[in-house]
């Protein structure tokens, strides 16, 4: 969820009144925002860098407000104020946007050449005319650009925004792509010219820009925008030229958005333009829906007129049509999140107030069923605890070492599913057995009085070609007994008890029996395979001393590991 930081007093000034922190928090809640933190620049610096650094920093109160991830229109002070004011019915109507032509008559043009297809194929542009920046507005303008870059632009991969002082350049503009050594210009805030190749090296160490280099780094050609005199405006998505940079005195702003996703590029350009001016070239889209649709979905019964009013309150200017049933809703370009009638329905519900809707009970009649596997698990857990074993709850993810080396097994024999992007070794694979988790639980509780008796009934994950995703879960029952003597008879007794609970009698064919088996995790001659109804269901035995020491344990330990799915 993006967080927008705004100066409180500036916000209240724009809203036309002041609020107590509680009142403002309440207003945010109703509108779907969250007042996350009340702070100041001084507070932030002192928290992050210590009191001494904070000396002299501004102590103007800042509100940090959490904005829903799809509401790009609320990412700056201007948008927030507009949204809240209309919500509080301060504005009679939400603003309308329209495009105007420059006094000269000729609109600016951005020509896109074919070469860009190889690297960043889309670009859109617009001009803000006769704008007056103040320091606050300028800061807000830059911050909105940054917020958009981080959110909808997906860290500039989808869209990159460039803003330029139009009076320092002349159209028509050309968006093209060239080999890096053929691009040469003075980048923003630098004193000399560099080739694109040199720039990429220069920015390798730049704490901010280095995160964007990978987007074009290995491409044969880099995107670049020129004006009619060959001046470089920008090399998206990395850096603008220094020549056309905007300042507080800039009157006319040229905004270009280059993109790999055209829809997102349009959204971003609309945001930039509508937040900062009255002009926009995007026409309104209109949706028609019935008041009845909203009443039915929300569970209210309001008149069509009232619903139109509710929508208007949410910046969706709405009118009841001549039939008295249908409502025509104008969707301004700021509301790119509205793509279906249900999005309009949500705004109506918000304007009505979620907490004013009467809570009803649906008459849906259904009979409950437990999943048989979970039902069996629940029943067995109770009885294993009654048998003196304590339940552990261990992670489904672990290291390769846990399921292979430490158990004296080969990872290639495990049928393990491997994770591609683990941040640490703890998340390399999905577990193929519950045993490592239980042994680690023992190790973390060595100070507890002996014997320790633990069990877990949970899922392991195994590769399985017959499944659509190539893997399946398997419900296992695993138990360990840890004491000064191995206690094979204890774990064997537990196995007998489990079979008794599952109504399987001792016996060779239809019953269960165990027979000596080889398993590298167990002490030679102390491991048996368990068969039930003629099928192998697991093993039990005394663990190999090397397994015990690899899990940082010191006492003998016996273990039981069986598949419970055959008993469904």
């Amino acid at each position: 969820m993006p967080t927008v930081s705004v100066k409180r007093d500036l916000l209240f000034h724009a809203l036309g009144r002041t609020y107590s922190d509680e009142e403002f928090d309440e207003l945010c809640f109703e509108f779907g925002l969250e007042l996350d933190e009340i702070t100041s620049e001084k507070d932030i610096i002192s928290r992050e860098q210590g009191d001494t650094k904070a000396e002299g920093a501004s102590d103007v109160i800042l509100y940090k407000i959490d904005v829903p991830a799809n509401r790009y229109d609320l990412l700056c002070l201007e948008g927030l104020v507009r949204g809240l004011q209309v919500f509080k019915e301060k504005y009679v109507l939400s603003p309308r946007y329209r495009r105007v032509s420059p006094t000269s008559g000729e609109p600016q043009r951005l020509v896109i050449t074919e070469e860009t297809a190889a690297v960043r194929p889309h670009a859109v542009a617009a001009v803000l005319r006769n704008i007056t920046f103040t320091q606050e507005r300028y800061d807000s303008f830059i911050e909105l650009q940054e917020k958009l870059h981080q959110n909808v632009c997906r860290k500039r991969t989808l869209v990159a925004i460039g803003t330029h002082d139009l009076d320092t350049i002349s159209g028509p503009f050309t968006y093209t792509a060239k080999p890096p050594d053929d691009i040469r210009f003075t980048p923003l805030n630098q004193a000399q010219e560099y080739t694109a190749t040199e720039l990429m090296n220069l920015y390798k160490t730049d704490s901010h820009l280095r995160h964007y280099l990978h987007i074009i780094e290995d491409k044969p050609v880099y995107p670049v925008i020129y004006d009619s005199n060959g001046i470089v405006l920008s090399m998206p998505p990395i850096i603008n030229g220094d020549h056309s940079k905007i300042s507080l005195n800039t009157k006319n702003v040229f905004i270009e958005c280059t993109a790999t996703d055209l829809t997102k590029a349009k959204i971003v350009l609309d945001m930039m333009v509508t937040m900062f001016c009255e002009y926009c070239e995007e026409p309104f889209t209109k949706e028609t829906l019935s008041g009845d649709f909203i009443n039915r979905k929300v569970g209210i019964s309001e008149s069509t007129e009232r619903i139109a009013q509710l929508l208007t309150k949410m910046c969706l200017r709405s009118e009841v049509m001549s039939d008295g049933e249908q409502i025509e809703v104008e969707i301004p370009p700021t509301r790119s999140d509205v793509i279906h009638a249900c999005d309009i329905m949500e705004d109506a519900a918000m304007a009505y107030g979620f907490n004013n809707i009467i809570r009803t009970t649906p008459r849906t009649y259904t009979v409950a069923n437990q999943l048989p596997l979970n039902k069996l698990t629940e029943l067995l857990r109770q009885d294993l605890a009654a048998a003196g074993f304590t339940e552990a709850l261990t992670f489904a993810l672990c290291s390769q070492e846990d399921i292979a080396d430490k158990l004296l097994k080969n990872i290639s024999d495990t049928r393990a599913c491997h994770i591609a992007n683990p941040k640490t070794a703890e998340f390399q694979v999905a577990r193929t057995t519950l045993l490592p988790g239980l042994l680690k639980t023992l190790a973390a509780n060595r100070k507890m009085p002996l014997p320790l008796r633990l069990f877990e009934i949970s899922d392991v994950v195994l590769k399985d070609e017959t499944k659509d995703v190539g893997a399946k879960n398997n419900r296992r029952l695993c138990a360990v007994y840890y004491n000064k003597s191995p206690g094979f008879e204890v774990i064997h007794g537990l196995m007998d008890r489990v079979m008794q609970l599952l109504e399987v009698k001792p016996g060779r064919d239809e019953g269960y029996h165990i027979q000596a088996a080889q398993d590298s995790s167990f002490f030679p001659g102390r491991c048996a395979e368990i068969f039930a109804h003629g099928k192998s269901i697991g093993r039990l035995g005394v663990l190999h001393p090397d397994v015990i020491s690899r899990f940082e344990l010191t006492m003998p330990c016996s273990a039981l590991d069986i598949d419970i799915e055959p008993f469904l």
Partner: protein
Amino acid sequence: MADAGLVETLLRCVEKADGGLDSQDVATSLGVDHQAIVGAVKSLQALGDVISAEQRSSKHWELTGEGCEIAEQGSHEARVFSSIPDEGMPQGQLMKLAFGKVGFSKAMSNKWIRLDKGHEGGPRVFRTVENIEDSVRDKLLVVQKGQSSQLEEKEKSELKKRKLLSEVTVKSYWITKGSLFSTTITKQETELTPEMIASGSWKEKKFKPYNFEAMGVAPDCGHLHPLMKVRTQFRQIFLEMGFTEMPTNNFIESSFWNFDSLFQPQQHPARDQHDTFFLSDPAQAHEFPLDYLERVRKVHSEGGFGSQGYKYDWKIEEAQKNILRTHTTAVSARMLYKLAQKEKFTPVKYFSIDRVFRNETLDATHLAEFHQIEGVVADYGLTLGDLMGILHQFFTKLGITKLRFKPAYNPYTEPSMEVFSYHEGLKKWVEVGNSGVFRPEMLLPMGLPEGVTVIAWGLSLERPTMIKYGINNIRELVGHKVNLQMVYDSPVCRLDA
């Protein structure tokens, strides 16, 4: 049990004494060690109110080793005086005596003797008086007789300073008759035995009283894990409300079911390497219902079903990527798709409680895996009011009655609501879950009838458990670092209590 003979002797002493007696005095008069009397007192106390014994402590003065020597042989100064003959004694010779040094200076300050430094043949000591009175010895003899009270405090502290006297604290019992006093004692039984029951002898026996202050012996039993106890309760609540359990035993899921089928666009941040665990083996899912897949592609890239769609180039390669599921809603999607394939739609209520995985930064309240609780209802004509009504019923069963809802954003529900409850302890509203109405772009491509609405909500299992059991660090609850003592000690789980 102390020596039975001594116990009876003690009882007879108590019988004779009017108004009680002191255990020290008994020890002295019987000529036995005081500890033996204390033992007898203790065993009598265990028999009930035979005697009453009140502990007291008294102080008295005792001679030190040096004090005893002086009481016997006289003070050092007196011995110096008496060892000097009329013709005097060379100082060097005097100093060689064991008591010489101390005795000389004391005798000098008492002016009993004098030193002639100029005497020929070296300094020589002479008596100056005929007789002396050895008051130090006299005082010590008084103390030795047990009459220290005759001495003044100043005198006693003077002798203490000279390490001749020491003050000793003596603990003793003041013993009086109890309400059940008798000079004969019967042995008390500790426990009822089968023999006593058979013979009826228990009727005549006296039984040793139990100490009800002590703790009992902990039963030798196993314990269920607290998080699983809470899971059982949540399952119970869903079953009481008529919800059927979904098969969530598939941790590995394709991006298609986890994201695409939920109308979550392919560039969505949740699909990032930073948030989701992708698999390298098996890296891809290879089986999809193809006509449904095509409808999903279309609604994302071109729109349809009343939607403009996201208008981007939807790629099957993205959908094929295997991941560890990030939510159990992936299973809900599979179940709803399955429901839509039935000939006739029947309303359903589903639930699940199972593990989900996030490739997130870990801290005291976040792990890479946690349990998600999810409820889903599908029927014709469900409203937002119905969703809030069900949530109200669900949370009431958890003991939470004060709820309010905040508008929120979620790519696959519209409207989306965060559920807040008023926490009486924290005196503020805290988020307890998420909820919403599934988008038509998710439901209609599955083939569900147009009028069917699906409402759903979810919450984590760990959070209410941590609140319930007062656990601050999630690692103490989930995973191998669990504190087993906490598991042993955890109470039953009654969520509404």
